[in-house]
């Protein structure tokens, strides 16, 4: 079991905070190249289908330092999106027919322009998802009204909760996180989130607290619903069971706990071509805090920019993005294992 360090890999100057070192390690593993797996079912080169979702990472700053974080986020990370870059996002969105804007981080709410950005997006009538880590709502008085703010803009809230007990949750996300998360969930429920008939969506995101694959999404959802209701009187809409991808802090955990090889083998063995044909990057683009464009948030963290004409928002070229070939690597096995994994849960 891991020990939480309270510092990002970057602040520790850990070798795995460097993208090249991560890519090198992923290459070293003696595994079938991901592109060869794709070729078996004629999926290579993997092509985008459309750009329906804009996933925007508004910064790496976070009030938590979770063990598995693929962003290497934390209070010591200062990289956040400026209002100017947000404006570039808004201009780019106008050039597309995308239906959904998915805001992530870090803790996106810590960006000082977060509310301004949401207001602009809301005015465009897009579906807005915020990946809220829950504890931010109770971290400071100035965030206590977030549930009301979310409600005002009909934001869909997607929140991580690795388990319905404190031991597993705190082991992954930090001491006391479970209790604070429960408090925040109650506040969201109070304004109507997760309740039938309100139209206010509260989804939970499960990811394994360790080197194993996620359980069946529906059966886990039933369990979460029952336990959260009876123990805490909490309700929510859907549970997404997602797989941890071997990058950044989760990669560091795998190596340090001597689980790296076993976990990679498991991902490769569980490769599912149906999941591969439905990977989220085929209908998503991911924008970094500095305005660069990627196929997904994972590629963003590995600094693998899109293979399209405009790699930055200032040169945004929707035609080229829709027709792009997706950059794949060994970490992609995390999206194609078993029932597959995306920011919206399973895909197969």
């Amino acid at each position, binding site marked *: 079991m891991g020990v939480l360090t309270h510092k990002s890999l970057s602040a520790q100057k850990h070798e795995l905070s460097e993208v090249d070192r991560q890519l090198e390690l992923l290459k070293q593993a003696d595994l079938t190249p991901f592109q060869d797996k794709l070729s078996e079912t004629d999926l290579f080169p993997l092509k985008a289908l459309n750009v329906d979702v804009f996933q925007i990472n508004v910064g790496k700053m976070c009030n938590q330092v979770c063990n598995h974080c693929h962003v290497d986020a934390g209070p010591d990370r200062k990289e956040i999106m400026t209002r100017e870059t947000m404006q570039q996002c808004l201009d780019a969105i106008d050039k597309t027919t995308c239906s959904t804007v998915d805001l992530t981080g870090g803790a996106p709410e810590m960006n000082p322009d977060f509310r301004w950005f949401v207001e602009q997006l809301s005015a465009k009538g897009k579906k807005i998802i915020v990946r809220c880590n829950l504890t931010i709502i109770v971290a400071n008085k100035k965030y206590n009204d977030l549930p009301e703010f979310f409600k005002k803009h009909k934001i869909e809230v997607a929140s991580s909760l690795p*388990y319905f*007990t404190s*031991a*597993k949750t705190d082991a992954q996300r930090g001491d006391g996180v479970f209790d604070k998360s429960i408090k925040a969930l109650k506040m969201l429920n109070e304004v109507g989130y997760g309740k039938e008939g309100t139209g206010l969506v509260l989804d939970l995101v499960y990811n*394994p607290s*360790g080197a*194993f*694959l*996620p*359980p*069946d999404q529906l*059966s*886990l959802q039933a*369990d979460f619903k029952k336990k959260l209701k009876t123990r805490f009187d909490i309700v929510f809409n859907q549970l997404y069971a997602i797989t941890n991808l071997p990058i950044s802090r989760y990669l560091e955990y795998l190596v340090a706990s001597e689980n790296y090889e076993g976990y990679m083998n498991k991902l490769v063995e569980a490769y599912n071509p149906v999941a591969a044909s439905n990977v989220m990057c085929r209908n998503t683009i991911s924008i970094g805090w500095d305005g660069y464009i990627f196929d997904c948030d994972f590629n963003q963290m590995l600094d693998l920019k899109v293979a399209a004409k405009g790699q930055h928002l200032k040169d945004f070229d929707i035609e080229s993005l829709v027709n792009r070939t997706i950059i794949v690597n060994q970490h992609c096995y995390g999206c194609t294992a078993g029932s597959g994994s995306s920011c919206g849960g399973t895909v197969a």
Partner: protein
Amino acid sequence: MKTYYDPDDLKKFGKIKDFQPELGEKFFDYYGSVFEEGALTAREKSLIALAVSHAVQCAYCIDAYTEDAMEKGCDEEQMMEAVHVAAAIKSGSTLVHSVQMMNKYKQLSM
């Protein structure tokens, strides 16, 4: 062969078919069907398997079903309770046989 148990041997379980394909095939078909979702959920079956693994003290099975139970969404408390069920039945079955010992004792005693 340096040790009797090698964790890597677990991955070779399927190879038992090399020496007797037909029976091996039948066994794996049966095995697969047993663990499918049925009147019992796949998770319940995984916990039973974990408990039985301890009762039969099979290192391979403990390895496999610890991981399987985690991947079925069980936590450490549930898993340890399952092992206690196995332990209770094992100790209970030992102790209940002492009734036979007592019967025999009484029969042989004045």
